[in-house]
């Protein structure tokens, strides 16, 4: 498996060093296609599957009774319908906050440990692997979140307001970069999240394996870094602003196929 990753990295190196003129559209689709065949996210998916079935935490329990919205233990298709409102938790949850809830209620692993933790480390890293496992079982499914639920609808509306909310020393909002077609920051292409296709592209390609950093990033990780680049204060893991933006993107992209897990530059 290690060797396979090395081979992938070599291919990427070749693709990135290919000469490109200023006029040429800087497009990484070709090498993304090459990668899709051996997406290193598979490693995380395997780790996640093992974590799902392994008895862990103070309660020495597995996650096999975790209800991701389609009934206890049902993983197939669950990610495509998240975020959703969960009666037991009393709030709208995305895949990450729902898994965190299951880890606490079933295994006894305190959510605080994850909320106060760091990405790629400790229980938050384990949570990311679980995300990889769960989304893989919604690969190719159409995004289908339930906007008819008043709590979900409210989250969508809060997310839409957040998307346009300018703040900080640089006056940026999400819309500053993500409200026009075919735009780039440097060489990075930006999805237009105000359109159905762009929202689905943004929502449906995370979590993803990031080639540039050799890391697996969840959607919360991605949004956290967006806020960093926006020059905002630091968003709290699993907080409403993350759920709101997620609900907005997923809801806007409803009906379009998700491509989880993605491969990104």
């Amino acid at each position: 498996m290690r060797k396979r990753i090395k081979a992938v990295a070599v291919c990427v190196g070749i693709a990135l060093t290919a000469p490109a003129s200023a006029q040429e559209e800087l497009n990484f689709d070709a090498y993304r296609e090459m990668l899709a065949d051996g997406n290193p996210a598979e490693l995380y998916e395997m780790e996640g599957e093992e974590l799902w079935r392994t008895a862990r935490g103070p309660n020495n329990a597995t996650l096999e009774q975790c209800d991701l919205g389609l009934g206890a233990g049902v993983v197939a298709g669950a990610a495509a319908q998240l975020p959703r409102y969960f009666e037991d938790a009393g709030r709208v949850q995305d895949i990450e906050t729902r898994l965190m809830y299951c880890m606490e209620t079933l295994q006894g692993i305190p959510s605080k440990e994850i909320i106060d933790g760091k990405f790629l480390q400790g229980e938050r890293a384990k949570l990311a692997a679980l995300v990889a496992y769960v989304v893989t079982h919604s690969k190719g499914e159409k995004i289908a979140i339930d906007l008819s639920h008043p709590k979900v609808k409210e989250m969508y509306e809060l997310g839409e307001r957040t998307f346009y909310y300018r703040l900080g020393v640089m006056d940026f909002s999400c819309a500053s970069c993500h409200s026009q077609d075919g735009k780039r920051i440097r060489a990075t292409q930006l999805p237009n999240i105000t359109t159905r296709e762009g929202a689905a592209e943004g929502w449906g390609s995370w979590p993803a394996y990031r080639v540039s950093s050799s890391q697996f990033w969840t959607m919360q990780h991605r949004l956290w870094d967006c806020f960093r680049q926006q020059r905002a204060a630091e968003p709290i893991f699993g907080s409403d602003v993350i759920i709101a933006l997620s609900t907005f993107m997923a809801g806007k992209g409803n009906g379009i196929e998700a491509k989880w897990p993605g491969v990104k530059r």
Partner: protein
Amino acid sequence: MKKLFIAVPLALCASVAVADELQAKVEEMMLSSFKANGIASLDRQKQDEIQQACSSPTPPDAATMQRLQAAEMAKIQWPADGNYTGGDWKEGQKIAASGRGLTWTDKTPNNNGGGCYNCHAMDPNEVSEGTIGPSLEGYAKLRGNGEEIVKYTWGKLWNSKAYHACSDMPRNGYGGILTEAQIRHVMAFLFDPASPVNQ
């Protein structure tokens, strides 16, 4: 018929009330969902008048835009000695290329880049250039270096919102992103005939 007359204003009131409630929730969430980290304090989550007015898909009406722009215009600091373009274009080139600064991983609020290439083409030899802003290739070659364009460019760099209240461009001088000396270097990068921008 009478009922309709009563119902319409009531419905209007209701929708306004709902909208205000949503706005209040957003403002509360933009504080409660965040924590301060290093130089990125929670003050960043509170909007000033410009940010508030430009936080919807539709810009404010023309009169409001003009009022906001006039207020921003008054915040521009013009060079006291009249030296607009006497910076070092090579320094300006570095500032334009650097997108660093002012995130919660930056230790100091000083020594920031301008991040110009994030959105603009400048030196035709730089391939990795953003497209959110207009191309600035051949800036002075195309526009000349008359007093009007020089002053406009300084003002735009210092406070872009003076010219378009809802511009996507940061207020570099007013926001303390770049110093006066740095802005002068960027001006040289745009106006110096020897600068690669004008080749």
